[in-house]
């Protein structure tokens, strides 16, 4: 009975189907502009085989910054690690006494090294913990405590991320806000494109919608904003991904990652602000692997969560998460992103 009503309603709806011609023409027009834009991006990027995202940023600064006289980092070519790699980047706020991981970014380097995938994990994502669930970033605070041992916090978060995603975290780094500020200034500012204006609740700063170049102080200000954004912390994660992509672009354009002298200067300048875990990989091998993938515009996706805040944090989306994790593990994030355009963060 209700089924018949349904079929009848659908049949009536059919009459309002728009004609095919205009749609087809509009699609062709849109494709032409998109292709043109893509070509421009590629031209800007091809000349320089670069930039392990923040990686260079991050990677290179081992706990002991290399001495100025040390041999150039990239002098000795090493065999590149094969297969996909996953790198964990943590942005940490330690201004308020305690330390919190505000941004958790998993950088997936596919086996074909075609591009980097920036996967934002919401810091308020609820993850299994002894005796229930806790926020992802609680693992960091608990391990770090009130001490200064960022490495302990990193290790705990790495474990939580590995448990959550089922992928091995091959390397990673922790960047503090002062570190991000210095890094931004050291590369000459970072271009960031915002879909909507952002107003800082910490300073008087206003970030207009559209593309802009941020200096270190402005970049950190933006990375801290969460209130007043449409999706709060989730939008901040998107801005962090936009920042990482901009940093990558900037390093690519300046040739920072491919020029050992420039790279060394950068490392010396910001080395102390960064904690790095190169895992089993050597630094040059890691930079080599990510540099090729970094030459293309990255794709940023967010770990699928339910948009509703459940009072304690964000829950993983039960329908999308399994497919997403399968794609991550099987190195098929590109397909997943193509099938879920709404989960992809616009970077330009």
């Amino acid at each position, binding site marked *: 009975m209700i089924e018949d009503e349904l*079929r009848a309603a659908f049949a*009536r709806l059919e009459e309002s*189907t728009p004609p*095919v011609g205009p749609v087809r023409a509009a699609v062709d027009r849109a494709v032409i502009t998109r*292709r043109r834009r893509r070509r421009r991006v590629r031209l800007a990027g091809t000349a320089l085989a670069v930039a392990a995202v923040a990686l260079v940023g991050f990677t290179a600064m081992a706990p002991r910054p290399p001495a100025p006289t040390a041999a150039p980092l990239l002098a000795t070519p090493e065999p590149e690690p094969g297969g996909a790699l996953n790198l964990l980047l943590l942005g940490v706020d330690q201004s308020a006494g305690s330390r919190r991981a505000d941004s958790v970014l998993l950088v997936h380097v596919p086996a074909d090294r075609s591009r980097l995938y920036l996967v934002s994990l919401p810091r308020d994502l609820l993850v299994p913990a002894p005796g229930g669930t806790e926020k992802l970033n609680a693992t960091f605070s608990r391990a770090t405590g009130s001490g200064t041992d960022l490495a302990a916090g990193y290790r705990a978060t790495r474990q939580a991320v590995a448990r959550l995603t089922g992928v091995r975290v091959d390397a990673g780094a922790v960047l503090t806000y002062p570190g991000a500020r210095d890094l931004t200034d050291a590369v000459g500012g970072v271009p960031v494109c915002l879909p909507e204006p952002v107003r800082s609740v910490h300073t008087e700063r206003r970030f207009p919608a559209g593309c802009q170049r941020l200096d270190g102080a402005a970049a950190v200000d933006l990375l801290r904003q969460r209130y007043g954004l449409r999706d709060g912390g989730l939008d901040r994660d998107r801005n962090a991904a936009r920042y990482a992509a901009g940093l990558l672009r900037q390093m690519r354009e300046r040739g920072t990652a491919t020029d050992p002298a420039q790279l060394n200067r950068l490392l010396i300048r910001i080395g102390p602000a960064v904690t790095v875990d190169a895992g089993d990989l050597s630094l040059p091998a890691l930079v080599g692997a990510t540099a090729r993938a970094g030459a293309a515009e990255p794709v940023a996706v967010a770990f699928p969560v339910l948009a509703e805040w459940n009072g304690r944090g964000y829950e993983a989306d039960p329908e999308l998460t399994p497919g997403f994790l399968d794609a991550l593990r099987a190195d098929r994030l590109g397909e997943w992103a193509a099938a879920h355009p709404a989960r992809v963060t616009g970077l330009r």
Partner: protein
Amino acid sequence: MTYEEFADARLGALLRYAVMLTGDPHQAQDLVQDTMVRVQLHWRRVARSDAPERYVRRMLTNQFIDWRRGSWARRVLLRGDVDDSVPASADHAQSAVDRDQVRSWLSRLPRRQRAALVLRYYEDLPDGEIAEILGCAVGTVRSSISRALATLRAELVEVS
């Protein structure tokens, strides 16, 4: 198959499907347009799949369900989901329920449930294929269809 051949053969059907999903010709047009742009840009990948048509239908369905962030989602938000401006017809004799009423109930269903209804009662697809398009288990398809029907039945009882 080339993109042109695919569009010649399937664009009309996709538009009709999008109309059923969205209940609105403009939104349907936006939805199909956005999907087909991506289809054309990534045609090689689409053509490589076993069944390009199903692959595209899946892309379109995902985009519809995943409406929260996409570019067309914002337009949908602005327009609102339920079109209440359409005056209800006074002629109740022509049908047990008002013709626009079913449509407005439909638009209030969760998108995934609505998509499942369209796939079964408009496209007449078997549950297995529906599950494949929605990317879930056959059992999930059945339960979401029965939940959707229950919602609609409850509405029906209320008016009659």
